């Protein structure tokens, strides 16, 4: 018994170190972004203020962040809408056996594990050969979908695996058509999961960099703008921007998680 206790404390210590490794760097830039106006890129902290957080919203010498931010929001929303629609439809298709399902399944997996530079290069080559200009809302959108769609699809498959088909059978026996069954029975039941998947998809798109980097065209999304800044910004404004955008994505994830658990609890309470 004593031996087990020792291994527990060793592993606990290891786990805490790991969490520190995961969050430590992030915490340092949070702290450095709260410096006074004469703050620098390294410790010690010089003063304490919200000066640099405010600077993010001002016109910058190196460009401004509002436009890329709006672009990333629009792109994220579009990616979310397409991903949800396509993945719900496809995962419903997979509830029934059909010829060719294995091929389609492996294509989805491939989209997840092909090195992302190939997706970016491939879309870039297609647009180049066709003579189309690359843009965040065309080639960039496609690049994002190759990343969000397989993840959403796999989550949706899991959700439908646990879905009780007797609800639909009951609706059908009572004479409901397929679309009616979907809108009145299936959709309300999977809605909390859709909310979660939707927010995950949005954050994935909002933070995506590698697949978009070669095909975003002239106007950058926010991660690309930040990447561009890393070489020529020497003030804590960079850290402030990092802090704000990290808080933004992290809160979306937390909202998704808590909304999902709350809705599930409420539904269980009803049943």
């Amino acid at each position, binding site marked *: 018994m004593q031996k087990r206790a020792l291994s527990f404390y060793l592993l606990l210590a290891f786990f805490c170190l790991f969490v520190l490794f995961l969050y430590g760097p992030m915490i340092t830039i949070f702290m450095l972004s709260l410096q006074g106006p004469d703050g620098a890129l*390294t*410790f010690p902290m010089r003063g304490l203020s919200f000066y640099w957080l405010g600077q993010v919203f001002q016109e910058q010498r190196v460009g401004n962040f509002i436009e890329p931010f709006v672009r990333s929001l629009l792109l994220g929303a579009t990616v979310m809408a397409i991903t949800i629609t396509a993945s719900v439809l496809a995962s419903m298709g997979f509830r029934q056996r059909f010829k060719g*399902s294995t091929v389609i399944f492996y294509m989805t997996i491939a989209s997840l594990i092909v090195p992302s530079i190939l997706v970016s*290069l491939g879309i870039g080559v297609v647009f180049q050969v066709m003579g189309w200009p690359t843009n965040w809302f065309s080639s960039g959108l496609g690049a994002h979908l190759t990343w969000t769609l397989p993840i959403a699809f796999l989550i949706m498959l899991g959700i439908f695996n646990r879905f009780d088909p007797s609800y639909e059978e009951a609706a059908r026996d009572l004479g409901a058509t397929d679309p009616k069954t979907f809108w009145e029975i299936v959709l309300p039941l999977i809605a909390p999961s859709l909310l979660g998947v939707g927010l995950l998809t949005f954050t994935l798109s909002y933070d995506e960099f590698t697949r978009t980097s070669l095909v975003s065209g002239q106007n950058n999304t926010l991660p690309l703008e930040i990447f561009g800044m890393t070489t020529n910004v020497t003030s804590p404004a960079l850290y402030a921007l990092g802090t704000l955008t990290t808080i933004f994505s992290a809160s979306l994830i937390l909202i998704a998680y808590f909304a999902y658990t709350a809705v599930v609890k409420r539904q269980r309470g009803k049943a």
Partner: protein
Amino acid sequence: MSETWKAFKPYALITPQTLVFLLFLVFPIVMIGVVSFWEFNGYSMTPAFTLANYQGIFTDVTLKTYLNTFKFLGLVWVATLLIGYPVAYFLAFHVPKLEWQILLFLVCTIPFWTSNIIRMISWVPLLGREGLVNQILMGIGLTQQPLEFLLYSDFAVVLGMVHLYIIFMIAPIFNSLMRIERSLITAAEDLGASGVQIFKEVILPLSAPGIAIGSIFIVTLVMGEFVTVRLMGGGQSASVGKLIQTQIGSLQYPLAAANAIVLLAVTMLIIVSILRVLDIRKEL
């Protein structure tokens, strides 16, 4: 409801998703294959059939780049496995309640949903010449001069990649550890197995599929990596991904395409060998 509709329905449902993949995944990769045989005359590409782009890969410089990429892969793989396994093991076997397991797992997952770029930038104030680590080391008198290798080096690249991608190793291992029947471990204990024996004979073999899936993710993420190499390597570090990105930057699409095809082939080869050793079908 007619029988024809019932047989046709799944195809109608998968059409939108399949179209997206055909348009933005399959067709682009086929085009990479085609363009890799085209001619490049210094500023533009013309349709042709030449092997010159592939011959360019078998030069000393490019082969070295490939070797360096393998070095990154090996180091990142070992590090993510050695750190990720104990973390997953702790979560699965030492955290008592399911709610706590999920919550702590979530704590590990949240950084993954935030921007990779920001996560890498945040190493700069820690590892730089005047960074916190060097300040502390010199403060307590362990070193006289700032350590240069901490940032903008191969060490920094590996550290950055481990930081970014370790969750891809932890999640599948955690998943396979959670599926292990607890009665198997009790049975082994009852039969007199020691803790080490239980781990070696029961837990490790049953979590092997999780290790395999995690390894596949690490392979595909590291092999095409160019952002970490660029940001943390500071110009000296080389990788195939970065080479491809540089070639695209100078519009040498056919050369980049040939490199991408070789990269894809090598990646697939590694994945197939992983699957040869470890069976993951039970996990899907």
